[in-house]
Structure formats: C-alpha cells, structure tokens
C-alpha cells in the first residue's frame, strides 16, 4: 500500500521532473530560445504573484504591473542614476519599494470592493504610468529607463550571457515557487482560500479578513517586484508601459489561461503567452495585437477554467 511518504514523493514528481528538464534545457536550446525562456521565467513569477491575490484571495486587480514596474524602475534608477553597483543592494530596494507601495495603497484600497477595487487598482497603474512618462529627469520619460546592466552579484567569475541569465532567472523562479507553495499550504494560505470562497463566513469564524487580504496583497506585490527587478536587468530597459494596464492585463490573461488558484497554472499561462508572442513576432509582427486580442477573447470565453485544471485532472488519472 502507498504510505504517506510515497504519496508525497509522487506528488513532488511533476515538479521535480519539470525542474530537471528545465535545468538541462540550455544544452539543447539556442541562445535566442534561452532568452525567450528567461523572459518566460520572469513573467511566470509575475503571474504567480498575481494569482496569489486573484486566484487564492479572489481579488481582481487591474494594476498589478504597478508593483512590477516600480520595482524595476527603483532598482534601475538606483543603478543608473545613483551608481549603486551591487545587485544585493539595488534589487532588495526595488522589491521593498513595491511592497511599500502595496502597503500604503492597500490601506486605502480595501475600503472598496468589486468593480471599485478593480477601478482603483487600474487607476494606480495608470497614475504611475503618467508619472513615469512625465518625470523625465528621473525616469527617462516615455523612452524609458535604459542602460540597466546585468546584475552585479559580486561574483567575478560570472560572465553574463543568455545561459547565465537563464539559470539566474530559473533559480529565482524555483525559489519563488517554493516560497509561494509553502505560503499557500500554510494555515495563512488556507485562510485566504476560505476568504475567497465565502468572506462572510470567515468573518463569522473570527478571522480578521481585512488583515489577511492586506498581507496577501503586500506579499503578492513583493513577488511582482522580484519579477520587475529581474526584468529590468534582463531587458536592460524599463518603460512606462511596464507599469500600466497593458502589462497588468497580460498578467491577468496568463493567470486565467493557466488556471487561477493553482500555483503552476500561471506558470503555464506565462509560457503560453510568451510562446505565442514569440511566434507571432516571427510570422506576423504587425498583427501581434490582433492575435493577442483574439487570444484574450477566446480564452476568456472558452477556456475560463484554464489549462492547469485540465492538466491536474490528467495527472490524477494516471
């Protein structure tokens, strides 16, 4: 009979297997594809962070990119404008900035709910977008903040190329995934799911719902910040569009396609979107908005549950 030990090993198998495959992939992929995978890893983190509040708490946010962008901008500004060299200083500052923004914003944002919450998060993203566009001296305006070098980790033997970015992003993704996984499966995480299911009942049970939502919001912003910082280094450039609804909506789409409320789902969703973006870029670059628009529409109408749910059903049957 299967004991609990075997059960746990079995459950870990898909994760370990995927991790292994991803770890050896660079051996067979071209530099270009490795870069694409790196982008995929970064957005996987972003999508997971969004899933935390959308899938697990049930809050609809149309401004998540605000945290992504502000972290990227902060880190980039510190490095480019203020000459901070070390990644270990600039990156945490960026991430903390995202968390701080969420902490301040969250105090006010949770006074409203439903569509008003959606609108107010949207307003936050656009507010930062217009600030970034106008504050030319600090942010480079609509041209964006460029010239962000690869992360200075203080490792002199490290040469930055596509493969090193790949592994760097991969490691960060794995760490984030692990942390989020533990968080979701902790009592706190379970409480969040309870809030998603039935907020009033949780209140009756004595949970301070506001506090839970607030903490989840800040944590999701921190992870979005991680993605933002990585993106800044990888892309070399952070632009206002990375703060606004375009990026936020893309993140939402990744979560929905991949299945909200699962942790690996958004990762898959991110993969799908990056993949489609890549091939659309090759085949019909002018029609990319049309394709992504169609993808939005079709996936929301027909694939609402997402791919992740479908995959876990298959896995259970095996």
């Amino acid at each position: 009979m299967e004991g609990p030990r075997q059960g746990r090993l079995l459950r870990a198998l898909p994760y370990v297997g995927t991790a292994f495959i991803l770890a050896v992939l660079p051996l067979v992929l071209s530099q270009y594809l490795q870069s694409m995978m790196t982008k995929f890893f970064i957005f996987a983190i972003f999508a997971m962070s969004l899933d935390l509040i959308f899938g697990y708490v049930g809050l609809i946010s149309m401004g998540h990119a605000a945290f992504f962008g502000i972290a990227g901008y902060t880190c980039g500004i510190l490095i480019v404008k203020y000459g901070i060299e070390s990644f270990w200083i600039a990156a945490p500052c960026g991430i903390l900035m995202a968390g701080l923004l969420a902490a301040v914003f969250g105090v006010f944002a949770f006074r409203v709910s439903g569509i008003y919450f959606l609108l107010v998060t949207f307003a936050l993203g656009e507010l930062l977008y217009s600030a970034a566009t106008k504050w030319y001296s600090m942010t480079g305006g609509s041209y964006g903040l460029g010239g962000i070098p690869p992360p200075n980790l203080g490792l002199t033997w490290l040469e930055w190329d596509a493969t090193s970015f790949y592994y760097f992003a991969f490691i960060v993704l794995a760490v984030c995934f692990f942390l989020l996984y533990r968080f979701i499966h902790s009592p706190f995480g379970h409480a969040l799911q309870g809030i998603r299911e039935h907020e009033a009942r949780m209140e009756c049970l004595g949970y301070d719902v506001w506090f839970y939502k607030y903490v989840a919001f800040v944590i999701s912003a921190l992870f979005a910040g991680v993605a933002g910082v990585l993106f800044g280094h990888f892309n070399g450039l952070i632009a206002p569009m990375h703060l606004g609804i375009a990026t936020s909506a893309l993140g939402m789409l990744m979560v929905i396609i991949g299945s909200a409320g699962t942790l690996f789902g958004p990762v898959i969703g991110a993969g799908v979107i990056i993949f489609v973006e890549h091939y659309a870029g090759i085949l019909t670059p002018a029609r990319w908005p049309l394709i992504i628009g169609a993808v939005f529409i079709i996936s929301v109408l027909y694939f609402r549950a997402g791919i992740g749910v479908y995959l876990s059903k298959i896995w259970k049957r095996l």
Partner: protein
Amino acid sequence: MDRIILGVLNGISFGSILFLLGSGLSLILGVMGILNLTHGALYMIAAYVGWTLAIQCKLNFWLAVLGGGLAASLLGFLIERGFLRRLYKQMNEQVLVTFGFVHLLTNLTLWTWGTTLRAPYTSPFLSTSIPIMGWSYPISRVSIILIGLVLAAVLWWLQEKTRIGAMIRAGMDNKQMTMGLGVNVDKVSGAVFLFGSFMAGFAGVIGSQILGPHLEMGIDILLMSLIVVVVGGMGSVQGALLGGMLIGLIDALGKIFFPEMAMFTMYLAMMIILLVRPHGLLGRKE
C-alpha cells in the same frame, strides 16, 4: 487672462466630447453592469470611418457623423450580442474580453487605414472662426459645445421625463423588480448598448474636428472617459456631464498651467473619488 478664457472654452468643448462618451459608458455600466472598454475603440473607428466618408468620399459632414455613429453602433451590437452577453456581472472577464477587442480593433484599424496621421476635419460650414476677445476661435469648437449642451438636455429629458427613461432607471436600481413589473429589461439594455455605442461613434466624428483620427485614440479617450464616469458617477446623465466638464477643464487648464501634471491630477482625482465616494459626485447609489 485671455489664455484662461480660451483654455476654459477648450476645456468645455473637450468636455462635451467626454460627456458624450461618458454618458454612453455610464449608462451601459449602470444598466447592464458591463464595463465596456471597447467604447474608446468604437470612438476611434467612427472617427476613421467618418474621415473616409467625409474626405475620401467627399460626403456631407453630417452624413459622415451619421455614418460614424452607425458603424460604431453596429460594431457595438455585434460585440455585445456575440460576446458580452455571456459575461453578465463577471467584471474581470468583461475587462479582459473588451480589452482584447481593443487590441483587435486597433490593429484592424491599422490594417485598414494605415499609420499616417489624419488631420482633424470638419464641414466647410463649420471651418471658419469667430473672434472672441481679439482671438479667433474656431466655430467647430463652439458647435461642439452647443451640440453637447443640446444633447445633454435631450438625454436628461429622456432620462427623467419619459417612460423609457424610467424603465432604464428602474433597471439600474433593481433589475428583478423591473422585470417583475413586465419590462423586458433585456431588450431595454440591448437598446441602451446600441444607443451608447452610437453616441460613442457620434462623438468620434464630432470630436475629429478637434483631434484628428489616430491610433492611440482608442485607449487615450477611453481612459479619460473612465475617469469621467467614476468622477461624475455611474448611471446618470448629469454625472457624465459634470464629470466631462471637470475632466475637460482639468485637461485644458492643466495644459496651460502645469502641463506635466494634468494626467496625473486626473488619475489622482479618480482614485480619491473611488476611495471617498465610489458612486461618484452625481451617481446613483446602488
């Protein structure tokens, strides 16, 4: 001082356009619970269609206005029947689907009309200017203000004094009850959507007198209309008018006095209203 007066006039004329868009958006939101992000794209497509009709086909300007409005309402109808119907009250899905349509429609417009910027156009009758305080002010802008005011009056009358208006207001306040009273809320909301889309198209062509059709129009004007709806309040014509005027004035005066801060101020205003008085300055309480 002159600049301020001109700025105010500019603000009011732009505000009229925002009012036209905002009232459609607001009604659709209030009656159908649909956040229609395609509104801006419809505005843009109508502007281009109007351009084609007025400049390429050399038709009468007012026919172009009508054409633009009809194109917009047709598109709106297709989108609503085909797609948005199925997503009643699912805010997030609506936002994503309508946002998807914005991408789609913008790209289609690009495909059809190309990337050349089109200049603002108007009818020969309206292309002269009148002197105001020693400056010559375009009649087209004055006409926009007048049209806006007339329509505001008409819409207000429709909303408050007619049976259709009562049905719409009732549908906003309590859908079940209204249906219980024998009103076909479905048909009414369909008509509201159609009408709202027509208004967006109408505004698109009328507004082309000031802003020539261009591809970012869809999102730009949509964002501002959202602010108008939030600030002015959902579901009321008065709200859209007030919101439109406020935002139009902030935009115009902001461009004169603090050009860097205009957009920022607007979003800040939107956030403050959402947090302090979510149903807007003149909105209907849900």
